């Protein structure tokens, strides 16, 4: 079975599954249209626990809908109060619809939240309530410390932060928000700017502009580095020299005979002094060498290297 055929079957199954669920799904509870506002005091009669924690809540402090604060988010509550039926009032957490504008954005329409209206991260979560406990007094109303909250869903990233080389997130010196605009961001992975630009915000020494450049540095840091964590040093996606050799050949001194057995340089087949002595041991040792030991200005340099051409990034 070809890959295309597998893909088609998968998409078909996904579509059938989706429509099947749709036919059996409950509709949104949007509150009863006949309901009228009853005021906060009525709500507190039943929801004492929420009211207690709400006293120092930022919404309580800033809210300018005095006396009717609960209903400014939940809508008129008279029918819900009379019937004591939870489905007869709008619950932003339960009734979140990502195809519509979130009720939170009616007030939180500042720049960072606005972008959330149209980005993948917002739709992936089940509304603001997935991360924020709106009635609490926690910092930013977060239901957990920020990093832990992110890692609850991004478990593969959490595992990568446990690898030997990593950004110091587990150490408490960085947060996910240092790189990701959790409420949106116009870039892939909700990054706060283009990935290269983002890395160079903190690692400005690597940005240049330099006279002698290394093309992957101009392209994308992620060609060589894996930002969350790696087994190789310096967040390199592979150890040296394997990483470098995926684009560059190793210096010929160390590798020739390892590839072909006893080597004689083609231009001097009869000259014992021009080949035949590079050993397999040399190749093995070459694999234990780090290219950046000599090419230490790997992100770029203003000064020429010693060999003609000048661009070996060794100074």
């Amino acid at each position: 079975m070809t890959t295309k055929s597998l893909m088609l079957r998968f998409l078909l199954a996904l579509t059938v599954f989706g429509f099947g669920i749709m036919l059996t799904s409950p509709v949104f509870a949007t509150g009863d249209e006949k309901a009228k506002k009853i005021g906060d005091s009525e709500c507190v009669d039943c929801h004492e626990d929420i009211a207690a924690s709400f006293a120092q809540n930022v919404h309580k402090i800033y809210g300018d809908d005095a006396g009717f604060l609960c209903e400014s988010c939940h809508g008129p509550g008279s029918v819900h109060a009379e019937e004591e039926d939870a489905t007869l009032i709008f619950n932003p957490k339960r009734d979140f619809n990502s195809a519509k504008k979130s009720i939170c954005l009616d007030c939180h329409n500042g720049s960072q939240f606005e972008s959330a209206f149209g980005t993948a991260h917002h739709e992936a979560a089940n509304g603001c309530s997935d991360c924020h406990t709106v009635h609490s007094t926690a910092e930013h109303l977060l239901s957990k410390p920020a990093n832990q909250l992110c890692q609850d869903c991004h478990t593969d990233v959490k595992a990568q932060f446990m690898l030997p080389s990593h950004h110091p997130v587990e150490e408490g010196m960085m947060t996910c928000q240092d790189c990701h605009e959790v409420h949106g961001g116009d870039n892939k992975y909700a990054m706060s700017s283009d990935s290269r630009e983002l890395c160079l915000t903190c690692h400005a020494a690597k940005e240049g502009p330099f006279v002698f450049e290394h093309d992957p540095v101009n392209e994308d840091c992620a060609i060589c580095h894996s930002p969350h964590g790696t087994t190789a040093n310096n967040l390199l996606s592979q150890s040296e020299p394997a990483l470098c050799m995926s684009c560059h050949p190793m210096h010929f001194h160390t590798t020739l005979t390892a590839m072909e057995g006893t080597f004689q340089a083609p231009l001097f087949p009869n000259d014992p002094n021009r080949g035949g002595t590079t050993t397999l041991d040399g190749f093995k040792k070459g694999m234990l060498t780090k290219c950046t030991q000599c090419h230490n200005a790997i992100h770029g340099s203003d000064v020429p290297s010693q060999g003609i051409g000048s661009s070996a990034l060794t100074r």
Partner: protein
Amino acid sequence: MKKLICVLLVFGLVLPLSAQEATTNWSLGVAGNYTAFGDGYIPKVAEYKYYKDGFFPEMKFNWNRYNGMNKIQLNGAYYNPKEMLFGGDFRLGKSVLADVSYKSFYRNTQLDLLENISARESLNREGTAPGGKILSHEIQNPNEQLGYQRQEIEANLKFLLPGDKITLRASHRTIMEDGKMQHVQNMHCASCHLVSRPLDVKNKTQSLTAGLDAALGVADLSYEVNVRKFISDAGPYSAYYDSAGHPGRGYIWTDPNTGATSNYYVEFGSRLVYHGEDVAIAAYPETNKLSHKITAKSNIGKGRLLLQYQNTTLTNDAQLADPNVTITGDLKVTANNLNGNYSTPLMENTKLILAGKYRRLENEDLSIDNPDWRDNRPGGDIDLDYIRYSSLTRTDLEGSAKVIYQPKRSYRLTALLGFNSVERDNFPIEGANFKTDKTMFELGVRYRPTGKFTGDLKYGLENIDNPFSPVDQMFEMYGRGTLMPTTGAPNVYYWQRDDLRYGNISNMPAMVHNIKATVKVQPNKKVKLDVGLNLKKGSNDTQKELDFQQTTMAPNLGLTLIPNDKVNFFANYTYVKQTQNGLAAVALMDG
């Protein structure tokens, strides 16, 4: 000035908080550790662990005070003299919001031992013992602790003007890195000798941002200007690069019988840019960045439009010069970005999000005037001057359309179609455009009948034409031509073979499939179960014979138990397996 603003802010807040009825919460945690390696040797046991013999008390605190619309929150943690963080958040009425933070940690780098660097090419003249290009090495200070202390200070201030329409904001950030790094001085071509020595790291990055946000009713406008400066106070350092010697002998040979000096010095020296002289090493240039950003948002029709324009200039203002190579031109990068997105209801329970991005990056060309190859030697006098065209000079275009369909509370479908193109000017040579096109497709479904169960399934596909490749690096292109020695030269030289290396073989995938599935079950507030699987496969069908593949498999299982308000038990198992069947470039020539 910044300190003064912070101090005034704190006093400004303390006064109203003291005068009225306020709520105060605080917590304090104290612990400690005792470390004894005994011999004074400080190993790199972990990237961020600072070890020193002795007892180190640790402390964590949190103190906050609320009064109506005023707030002070202070928090901090002290782990050891090199690892700590402190911060504060302040709010004064509706008008002033501020925060300040300081953090400091140590990052171990490592000492690269040089024993493994080895290169042998030929036997001695008699063919009896290894000789030729044997690299020797020397580590001048093997016990030096290599790493740097990274400190960061950040402060942000927001001020809402009366009328609640205009917000002024300012922020400052300084990053300081202070320590030692290993620097290996490479004199391979001259004397085959490597010297490693620790050099200072003293980097400082300062960034200042000022902005204005205006809510004008018909539109929200904001403007931001950012200035960033990077400097290094380390050095200056220089190193002596030995005079060139013969690769086989490694030194300038004098015939013991005749007393004649070999011409190796001239022969091999003429292949080098510099030798037998002191040159500057390990210098970072001073760079300055200035960017302006304008954002506008408005309701257009039933939807919301966001447009953003950003202009950035980045200059290298202290380019280190070398007397042997003349470089002409300005080191300056200019970037112009235009982003936009429009989000609108398409029909009942359906939302459409359109996004687009244009970016033009221009890195100015430089003229590089190299010494001639084998100047005044047979087959030499070859001019190796060139114009450096930067691969950074490029035009990026990106666009996507996403539809979200959620007819019922429990059910949601999302679909995305997008493209991204990167067109590089003059890469790798003048006029050779190298363009990468990417098409993206995503389909997702979510099922959430109640808050007790959430299931997500998502499939993503990326199709990439011409993924990035270091075009002239990897292999010689088959049939690219027959090499002949240049006029008068005895051999074909290695740089001639380098010219044959032109093939766009890539170690990047041309097709990526990604499937993500997650299930969250929470039967009640005390128990939660998470199960997930992330599968990713990248391949490059355009070079099938090389069998390039990248795969990721990451299953996950998590259990959270909350028996009461005071106890929270969390266990998670995540397994990540990443494999790559990649390429390795091999050496193909004689030196």
